[in-house]
């Protein structure tokens, strides 16, 4: 009897153990959609696995997604999208490093890992398929002709964020301006006067001088627009009179800019807490009527910022404007983007032509409409020019609410801002688009289009150095002349010289 019991318990444990190993070991395929109704029988269906960081906030793609089905039908493929959580490229890099190649891969543009893929010959040259991919050819050769590899071929489609447009500029309390009878400042002097009025004339009407002019975001705030006003030309590196590449703090625009900022700081026009602000905190101070100006991304945030502001102050109104001009009429705010995503086809892909056509489709107008609007007659209908969204059908394919897009729409090939896309249903649509127009008009170009390798290596160290000196000079812990001299010496010694050297070479070659 006892032995039987023993045997029973022992076998039970074995069963549990085996079950727990195998039971969970099933691999579940995602987004496997068989294309049905494919008419061309001679064209076999090729599975295409696409590993991407994608749009981290999008909903998952459902198994019988009609958008994926439509794409499958078009190219006789069986598209399987694998989205890495958290937009974390680490996983993409590990997958590639371990030999687990997808057919199409999206990684970071211009990172050392992506460059390694090209150098190791893991990617397929897209030039070979240009005949059947007109959009791809046009975009690569006309817009990104600087993204060729050493052998002169294109190995992937770059999606550079904030490349042609941006949405970051100065946002302010329009209701305060109106109350104090102020005009939107045009010059640095006007700007100073407005900040001063915000500080001293009690714009929130609580009888106390407890407001500040402007706040920003850690670590050192977004105050470069002052330097651009004083004549700084490029967002990344500057040229001196001899045509040599120098860091921006050695440029003639730096000292007057720093003196101006120092004046604002000493007079209490800059909120000293900006050093601790994350984006949330910065916005809170704006809603709480503690500051009049913030440096913020707008576009879709126009309605959100104003909505939150009005919850606290029913009279609140959001304004946005060009940054102030310097003595010579210069102005600028957000830099042109340099980094982004890079989508390429791997050598493992058995149907590279179809994969290239798929990428071509995704960047074409037709493809963009498919992932934004859906299929006409199902996800939306047209009434003249007006688009009527069928939210019920859209929800079935996990489109985002309120006329927003399909999970495949953003992140790999474009973002709403880059494509200036806002659904017709968006609140404050006109103002959102206007804010982008303003911000993009004062976007600041770079001296060189790519990120040099030395900057990838030493960039963080020299940036920390700069940040530390910037704060010390702003707060008056060190005189500006002395600060610049010391910073210059240390910056160059700790890797800056190597960066400059490389930038100089790239700049000379491009000239």
């Amino acid at each position, binding site marked *: 009897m006892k032995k039987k019991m023993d045997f029973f318990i022992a076998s039970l444990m074995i069963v549990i153990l085996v079950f727990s190993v195998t039971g969970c070991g099933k691999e579940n395929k995602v987004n496997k959609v068989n294309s049905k109704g494919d008419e061309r029988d001679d064209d076999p269906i090729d599975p295409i696995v696409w590993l991407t960081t994608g749009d981290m906030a999008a909903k998952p793609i459902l198994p019988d997604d009609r958008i994926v089905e439509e794409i499958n039908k078009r190219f006789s493929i069986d598209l399987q999208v694998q989205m890495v*959580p958290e937009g974390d490229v680490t996983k993409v890099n590990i997958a590639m490093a371990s030999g687990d190649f997808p057919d199409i891969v999206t990684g970071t543009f211009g990172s050392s890992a992506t460059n390694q893929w090209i150098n190791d010959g893991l990617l397929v040259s897209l030039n070979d398929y240009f005949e059947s991919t007109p959009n791809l050819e046009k975009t690569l050769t006309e817009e990104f002709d600087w993204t060729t590899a050493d052998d002169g071929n294109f190995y992937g489609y770059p999606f550079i964020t904030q490349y042609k447009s941006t949405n970051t500029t100065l946002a302010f309390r329009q209701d305060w301006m109106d109350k104090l009878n102020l005009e939107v400042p045009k010059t640095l002097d006007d700007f100073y006067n407005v900040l001063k009025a915000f500080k001293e004339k009690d714009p929130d009407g609580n009888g106390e001088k407890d407001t500040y002019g402007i706040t920003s975001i850690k670590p050192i705030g977004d105050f470069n627009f002052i330097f651009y006003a004083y004549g700084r030309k490029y967002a990344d590196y500057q040229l001196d009179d001899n045509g040599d590449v120098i860091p921006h703090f050695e440029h003639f625009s730096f000292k007057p800019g720093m003196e101006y900022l120092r004046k604002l700081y000493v007079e209490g026009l800059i909120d000293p807490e900006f050093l601790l602000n994350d984006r949330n905190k910065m916005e809170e101070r704006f809603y709480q009527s503690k500051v009049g100006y913030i440096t913020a991304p707008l576009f879709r945030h126009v309605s959100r910022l104003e909505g939150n502001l009005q919850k606290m102050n029913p009279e609140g109104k959001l304004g946005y404007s060009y940054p102030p001009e310097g003595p010579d009429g210069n102005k600028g705010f957000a830099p042109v983007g340099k980094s982004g995503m890079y989508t390429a086809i791997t050598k493992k892909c058995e149907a590279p032509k179809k994969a290239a056509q798929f990428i071509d489709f995704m960047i074409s107008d037709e493809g963009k409409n498919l992932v934004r609007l859906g299929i006409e007659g199902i996800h939306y209908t047209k009434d003249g020019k007006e688009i009527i969204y069928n939210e019920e059908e859209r929800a079935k394919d996990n489109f985002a609410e309120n006329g927003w897009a399909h999970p495949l729409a953003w992140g790999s090939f474009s973002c709403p801002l880059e494509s200036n896309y806002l659904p017709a249903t968006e609140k404050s649509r006109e103002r959102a688009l206007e804010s982008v127009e303003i911000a993009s008009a004062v976007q600041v170009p770079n001296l060189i289009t790519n990120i040099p390798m030395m900057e990838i290596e030493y960039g963080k160290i020299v940036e920390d150095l700069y940040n530390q000196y910037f704060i010390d000079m702003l707060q008056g812990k060190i005189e500006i002349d002395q600060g610049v001299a010391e910073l210059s010496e240390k910056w160059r010694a700790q890797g800056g010289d190597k960066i400059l050297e490389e930038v100089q070479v790239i700049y000379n070659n491009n000239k």
Partner: protein
Amino acid sequence: MKKRKNTIQIPTGSKIFDIFNYIFLSIVGILTLYPFWDAFVVSLSPIEEYLKTSIHLWPTKISIEPYSYMLNLRELWISYWNTIIVTVVGTSLNMLMTIMTAYVLSKKDLKGQRIIMFFIIFTMMFSGGLIPLYIVIKNLKMMNSLAALIIPTAMSTYNLIILRNFFYSIPQSLEEAAMIDGCSEIGILFKIVIPISKPAITTITLFYAVTNWNQFFSAVLYIYDKNKWPLQLFLRSLLFENDMAYQAGGESLFMLGQPMKMAAVMMAIIPIMCVYPFFQKHFTKGVMLGAVKG
């Protein structure tokens, strides 16, 4: 009067020291508790109340909207379910493996015991590294399945050592007595050893459960389907801005108000916190684990 006689006079220095201790520890306690309290208060506030001040000591107005929003969010429930599976299945497997291994290795007459132990401890000192691990998971066909979050961490060497040492300290005579009374080997494990090792076992269960509940990095690596995200991944996507998506106007849960995020945080920590009181009494004994024998 009598009572007074018997009391031992506490020196003033010692009293001052005690008072200082109480004050100091209370402050530390409050500092530890405040973030939690703050999150709790914020999660109960409507957004305009939240925005009014930066310090939230008490909810001025109570709104259940953040919770009702979160409760209606499908993604939250999916990730909740995944985490529950990982925690329950994972912890059961963890305990099964750890108890059986530890018991066998605690047998003094087991041949080659030192060598087996050496190999197990070796894995604690030197690991294969990220990419080899990834390849193993991939070749075992566990990519994108919850098994990848359960099987590779089925046994923790550290916990194994603790439990083995506890079993080691159980007198041999107990088992011999059971044997004489006719108990089988497996019977001894289940009827004698496990019941008297309750403090150790509950403590280790707690260690495992919390680790499983908090699984994050392996999910980033091995899971790519949103329907298989554990809770921590979902939470992170909610709490940390992805600057690119946010700035460029992409969909972002980050754009939700702080109260909703805090409601999600509360919902994620409360269940695992509720486990603690049940384990508390064993836990105090459990702290002594492994301190006795090595």
